[in-house]
């Protein structure tokens, strides 16, 4: 059976550096950092006291009071980002067949704050289990796509993908494949996360995963720099409308890019450490090239997973050299996490969106905060350091990897001939 072509017809983003697509792009190209001292709770006893929080977000601007109480922040972000993407797509919800629209959404954790607060309340009591009836339905990761479908009446395939920081990349790949196979005409996909909580910060801190550069938060996320010391936790949501090409063409939709394929693999190595030779990462990029019908030389940009951790960044670049050989040095490699921080389950979506916007504008956003070269990194690689670079982009790839050894890679192609 011939696979259908799939295109991107709508985008939405709620990120630490911009609360919609146009703000996000402005911030990406100007090299803005989203890091700042944490405002959500008292950090005096925490090793890391900063994160990339969403700014100027009032849930009551988007939801009534009752809805706010029923929605963990990760689900609020999902609804806000997907609303922007649906509106942007121009899909007329009054005429479209809603049985042919699905939602596949990524969240690495889900309602962590809800979980944390309910358990704190329980622990304060006498042991009587007086849990709020909204505890479970607010917390579960799949409530984000559930709520998106409830809001708009989308009755196609609907579930959440959970693969830690690769979650929303897996969501996009599943969404792509359902349309390719003819199950749906339109899929709302992407991811959201809201883990800037005591449990989130404390948990990642105890793994030694987070940067502790408390004296200079905006310089803390520095992928590929010799003095990187861990990732900066971010939060937010990113949404993409994927649509079957003929369906999009028939309704005269604006098309951002074609989604030409996705790769998936597992490290099968360690719960949290990357494979030192990047075996699974090599496999995922090769899978993605094959699934997309690409040769290595076709790829113009790679938005890396690049979290600013000592081991992960080096392993990923080694893998890129292994897969792309001599062409690796011709690729614009970047890490938008230098600006947004690490949005965990939402990372794949917001970074894919960055890749698509870069393609639209033929401008690669920079990897900011690079000061000192790491001697373990090949100086011939173009890491798009500190300043955006103009580049005619035909094919862009976006990598995301998650704890558990999950790897996912998505490829987009420009519609310009």
């Amino acid at each position: 059976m011939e696979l259908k072509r799939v295109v991107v017809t709508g985008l939405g983003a709620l990120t630490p550096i911009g609360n919609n697509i146009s703000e996000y792009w402005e911030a990406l190209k100007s090299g803005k950092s989203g890091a700042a001292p944490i405002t959500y709770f008292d950090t005096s006893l925490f090793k890391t006291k900063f994160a990339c929080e969403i700014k100027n977000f009032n849930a009551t601007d988007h939801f009534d009071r009752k809805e706010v109480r029923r929605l963990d922040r990760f689900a609020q972000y999902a609804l806000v980002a997907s609303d922007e993407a649906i509106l942007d797509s121009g899909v007329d919800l009054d005429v479209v067949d809603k049985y042919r629209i699905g939602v596949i959404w990524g969240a690495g954790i889900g309602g962590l704050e809800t979980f944390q607060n309910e358990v704190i309340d329980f622990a304060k009591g006498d042991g009587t289990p007086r849990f709020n009836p909204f505890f479970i339905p607010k917390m579960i990761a799949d409530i984000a796509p559930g709520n998106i479908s409830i809001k708009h009446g989308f009755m196609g395939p609907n579930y959440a993908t959970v693969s830690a920081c690769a979650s929303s990349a897996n969501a996009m790949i599943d969404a792509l494949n359902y349309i390719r196979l003819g199950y749906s005409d339109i899929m709302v996909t992407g991811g959201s996360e809201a883990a800037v909580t005591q449990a989130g910060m404390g948990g990642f801190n105890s793994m030694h995963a987070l940067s502790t550069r408390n004296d200079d938060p905006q310089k803390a996320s520095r992928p590929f720099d010799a003095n990187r010391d861990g990732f900066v936790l971010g939060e937010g949501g990113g949404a993409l409308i994927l649509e079957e090409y003929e369906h999009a063409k028939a309704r005269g939709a604006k098309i951002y890019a074609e989604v030409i394929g996705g790769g998936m693999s597992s490290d099968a190595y360690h719960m949290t450490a990357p494979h030192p030779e990047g075996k699974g990462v090599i496999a995922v990029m090769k899978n993605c090239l094959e699934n997309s019908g690409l040769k290595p030389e076709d790829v113009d940009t790679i938005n890396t997973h690049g979290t600013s951790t000592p081991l992960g960044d080096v392993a990923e670049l080694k893998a890129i050299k292994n897969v792309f050989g001599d062409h690796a040095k011709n690729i614009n490699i970047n890490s938008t996490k230098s600006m947004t921080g690490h949005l965990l389950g939402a990372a794949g979506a917001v970074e894919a969106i960055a890749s698509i916007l870069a393609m639209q504008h033929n401008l690669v956003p920079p990897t900011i905060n690079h000061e000192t070269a790491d001697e373990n990194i090949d100086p011939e690689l173009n890491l798009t350091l500190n300043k955006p670079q103009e580049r005619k982009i035909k094919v862009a790839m976006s990598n995301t990897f998650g704890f558990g050894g999950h790897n996912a890679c998505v490829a987009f192609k420009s519609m310009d001939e």
Partner: protein
Amino acid sequence: MSDIASRVKAIIVDKLGVDENEVVTEASFTNDLGADSLDTVELIMEFEKEFDIQIPDDQAENISTVGQAVSYIEEAKK
């Protein structure tokens, strides 16, 4: 309005996000105030917490209006 009634009303306004003047004695949580099954459970739990009482499930089933809640709590607090 009794102290109990005004506290019950305040909880309903807060939890269901409804306007204060909608919360009349005969208003039904589900039919008039837009509560679903989860909201109803939450309301009962909030009443228990606010008034330091226990409302067994079989009796909670009979509390479906503002007035029924107030009467039940007034009785329980006697």
